[in-house]
Every structure is written in structure tokens, then in C-alpha cells.
């Protein structure tokens, strides 16, 4: 906010409104109550969970105990899931961002045969429900020997049609054609132009796409659920659901406290990453608005 230049017109820098702040604060409460609930209940023992009210602390404060248990339960499988998730995010979301950036730029700044077809196919694909793809993808991957390997999760997450779209929109606006022309006149090749001229201009867009693909990969559930059979390759989401499901039937081992603590721990890295990236993202946005 500090970067928003102070202008003399009140429309741009008006007086702060208390009423608006209070109304928005109500919405804030709605947003935060479930998270508060999660924090409170992640700090209870299994026994206290079964015997105390949801929105108040009860029994011993067991958050750190629960965290310890979460990380050590079943030989520390949670830690492994965390590592898997990070792997899927770095390779999957990272790859998705690279592919989407290149393709989005290509769509925005080049006219080439098949361009409209690419657009139509990509947009159409967004509408296809994942279940339509799940079974055939599973069968294909199993023939290729990819099921129950990290690749089965990573390859499909390399594609982010939304990321492509975002970069496309952003590049169309943020990269003046004159800039590219000037570089071409200087004799630079297309790839060199992309690497040296374009990328820098696209940084805010790229960060935004990274944020979204990261969240998407971190939260990915359906595909790994189908593709993976061994817990050692699970991401956190599938692992947590298995923990939740093991409260069922003969030999049930309910660990609701660990499910809750695990849920909390699953959210935290993303929140931190978001807060961290927020700063870059915001400066990028401001830059964009100044330019506009």
C-alpha cells in the first residue's frame, strides 16, 4: 500500500471508512472461525477431543504433543508425505509455471497456424471433469508402468490451462510489441528475446501463476488417490484422508487428533508461502497499475 502514490483526488485516496471496516470484519470472522476451531482442536488430546466442547480449549494443552505424535506416528510417515508434497509442488507446479509462461507468451505475442485451435482445445479441456480423465489416464499410466510412482502425480499437474490464460492476458498487456521489435532489429533470436527481455516483464504474472499452481498441486487429491497405492508416495491430502478413514471398522485406529493436527500442519506451509510471495506479488501489481 505504501507504493500507491498519494494523489490529490479523494476518489483515489479517500478517507478511511469505519462502517466498511466493521462490515468487512464480520466477513473476516466467518473466514477465521473455522481456522480458529482447527487450531483449538489440534491442541487437544484424543480423549479431550471426545469430551470437550469445540470452541473452547479443554483438557491439557497438547498441541506440541500432537505435533510430535503427528511426525512420529507410524515411523514418521507424515514427514514422508510432507516431503512428497514438496516434491510434487516443486517439480509439478514449477514445471507447470514454466510451460504455462512459455505458452501464454507464445499465444499473446505470435500469430501462428493452429493458434485458434490451441485456444479452443485448451479451453474445452478445462470443462472436462477430472473423473472423465481419471480412468483412462490410470489405465494408460499403468501400461507405461507409471502408476504408484511420483511421475503419475507430477505429469498431469504439469498442465495449468488457467496459468496459460493468465500469462496470455498479462503478456498481451505488459510486453509492448515495440520492445520485441527492437530486440529483433538488434538481431536477437526468439528464445533469447524470451529469456532476456520477456521474462523480466512477466515476473509479476509468473509469480501469480506460481502461487496458483502451487496451491493447486499442494491441494491435489483426486488424482494421487487413484494413481498411488503405497502410502510412501502419498501427498499430505491423501495421507490425511487415510488417517481419517482408518477410524472405520474392525481394527479401527481412530486418530482424529492427529488428523486435525496434520490438517493444521498441512495448511501452514502454504500460508507462509503465500504471505512471503504476497510481497513480490503486490509490488508486481502496483508496477502494473502504475504502468497502466
Amino acid at each position: 500500500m505504501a507504493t500507491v502514490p498519494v494523489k490529490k483526488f479523494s476518489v483515489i485516496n479517500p478517507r478511511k471508512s469505519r462502517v466498511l471496516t466493521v462490515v468487512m470484519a464480520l466477513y473476516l470472522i466467518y473466514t477465521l472461525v473455522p481456522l480458529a476451531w482447527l487450531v483449538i482442536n489440534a491442541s487437544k488430546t484424543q480423549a479431550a477431543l471426545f469430551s470437550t466442547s469445540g470452541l473452547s480449549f479443554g483438557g491439557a494443552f497438547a498441541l506440541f504433543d500432537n505435533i510430535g505424535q503427528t511426525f512420529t506416528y507410524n515411523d514418521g510417515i507424515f514427514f514422508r508425505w510432507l516431503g512428497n508434497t514438496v516434491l510434487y509442488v516443486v517439480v509439478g507446479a514449477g514445471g507447470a509455471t514454466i510451460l504455462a509462461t512459455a505458452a501464454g507468451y507464445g499465444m499473446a505475442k505470435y500469430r501462428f497456424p493452429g493458434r485458434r485451435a490451441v485456444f479452443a482445445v485448451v479451453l474445452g479441456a478445462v470443462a472436462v471433469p477430472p473423473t472423465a480423465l481419471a480412468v483412462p489416464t490410470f489405465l494408460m499410466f499403468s501400461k507405461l508402468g507409471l502408476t504408484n510412482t511420483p511421475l503419475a502425480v507430477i505429469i498431469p499437474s504439469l498442465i495449468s490451462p488457467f496459468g496459460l490464460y493468465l500469462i496470455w492476458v498479462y503478456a498481451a498487456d505488459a510486453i509492448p510489441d515495440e520492445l520485441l521489435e527492437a530486440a529483433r532489429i538488434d538481431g536477437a533470436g526468439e528464445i533469447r528475446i524470451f529469456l532476456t527481455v520477456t521474462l523480466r516483464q512477466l515476473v509479476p504474472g509468473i509469480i501469480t501463476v506460481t502461487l496458483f499452481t502451487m496451491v493447486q498441486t499442494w491441494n491435489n487429491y483426486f488424482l494421487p488417490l487413484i494413481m498411488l497405492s503405497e502410502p510412501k508416495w502419498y501427498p499430505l491430502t491423501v495421507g490425511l484422508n487415510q488417517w481419517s478413514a482408518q477410524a472405520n471398522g474392525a481394527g479401527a485406529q481412530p486418530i482424529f487428533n492427529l488428523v486435525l493436527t496434520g490438517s493444521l500442519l498441512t495448511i501452514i506451509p502454504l500460508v507462509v508461502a503465500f504471505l512471503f510471495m504476497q510481497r513480490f506479488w503486490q509490488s508486481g501489481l502496483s508496477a502494473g497499475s502504475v504502468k497502466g
Partner: protein
Amino acid sequence: MTSTAAPPVPAPARPAPRARRSRGKWRGWLFVAPFMLVFALTFIAPVVYAFVLSLYRDQAFFGGTVFVGADNYAQVFADPKFWESFQRVLVFLAVQVPIMLLLALVAALAIDSARLHGAGFFRIVIFLPYAVPAVVAALMWGFMYGDHFGLAADLNHLFGTAIAPLSPSWLLTSIGNIVTWEFVGYNMLIFYSALKVIPKELFEAAAIDGAGTFRTILSVKLPAIRGAIVVATIFSIIGSFQLFNEPNIMRNLVPNTIGTFYTPNMYAYNLSFNGQQYNYSATVAIVMGVITAVIAYVVQLRGSRKEI
């Protein structure tokens, strides 16, 4: 480029002046090809395969694949289970999507208005739920919805109400609440980033014309972010039609209310993985995909037509 062929872009791409040069005719593929290659493997191939599957019928236990042509499609169109689930997501869409987008829009406008104390804090916190995996959100709200020991029970205790979020009449609302909670922040961010790039001169001009806050919103801000609104609407429609994670996880709590065909996506999933009716499942998924694509396309057309 005509406006109908362009994506719902706020600012349609200007054609590159040198594009007609034959030297550079194909060079755009340099950047698009890697994406399309992976795309072909993970989207196009499975879609084609699903289509192939939809033309056959296979017996789960005794094999014997038979080519049945369009029979599976005929069956889907006459399948009351499919239409029941379709109707449900349609209702869901008609109610939940407008509420969610309206909340997101108001939040974005409020944060963008510079009238808010601590606007940055609001933006971060409202976006936070998007960082919560759908699995975790569904598990968490599922716990809270419990009307015996959950948060709902506590509230009922406290206020003497009789909220029963998991009862059949409330359930769709309860799921809508989870989805709204998760995605208001996401849509808010789309709107907010579109608001951010509106040229300041427009506001200044509006102010000089004597437009008040609401006039400015209606005649400057909203038209300027129409593209973003269309995009958010399309993505929300697609999301509603594909509703799966939340009801599927909550099914563990209320299996009698959330049956195996509560949403079209759940129906396709259960056909495959409980009934091993892979062919029919693929057909249901394709029909759903086509319907979704058509509706998304219509929304886009309407969105861009108004833009002229």
C-alpha cells in the same frame, strides 16, 4: 482476430505487426509446443481414450467387450440418476455461484477502495481459506457440522437454535457454505488484480465529472473488470459442475443423504470404482464435459458481446 474468437480477455491481444512475415509464421510454436506436448499426453489422449471407452460395453466380471455405438449415450439421457445429480449441481450453481461471486466482488471493491483500515490484512486473511486443501476443509467443516458434539451442537446449546447442517434439507446449503468459504478469496483476488490495473486517469475523470463512489463503481470499475467477472463466472460454473471433493468426503458422515450419485462427478467416480462400469462412467463424464463446455462457451459469448 474477432472479438468472439478472443478469450474473455480484459484487454484483447493486439496483433503483432510482423506476424505476416513467412519467416516467423511458425515460430510461435516454439513456445506453445512444450505445453501442447504434455497437454496431449495428459488431456487429449485420455479424452480420446474415454471416448473410445464410451462406445463399448464391458462386463465387470466375465469380460466380453462389445461395441455398442451410441447406446451408452442413449442410456445416460434416459438415466434418472444422472439427471437427478445434474439438477442438484444446477441448483447449487444457481444459488452458490452468485453469492460467492458477489461476496468476492464486494470484498475486492472494499479492499481496492482504499477506504478500509488495514486493507492488506483483509486481503491476506480473506484469501487464506484458498490455501486450505478441499480435503482438509471438508474434514474440518464436517467435524464442525456435527449436531451432537460439533460446533453446530455448541451453537444450538448456546442460542437454543436447531441448526442441523447435516440433515437432508440443509446439506446442500452446508456444502455450498464450504465451497463459498474456500473460494471467495480466490475470486476476490481475480477481481482485485483486475481492479488494480484500471488506469487511474479514469477515476480522476469520473471525479471531475462529479461521480460519487457508487457511480464510479457502476460506471467505471465494473465495466473495466467485466473480463475478469466473465472468467471468474466460467471457472465457478465449471467448478460447480465438477463438485466432488467436498460431498465425497462428507459422504462418510451422511451416506444416506449423500448417495453415490449426489453429483454427476461422484456418479461417474462410483460407477468406475465401485461398479467397475468403466464404459458407462466414461460416457457420463463426457456428457457432463460437453454440457459444461457449452455453458461455459455461452457465458463467454454473452460476456464478450456486452463488451462491444
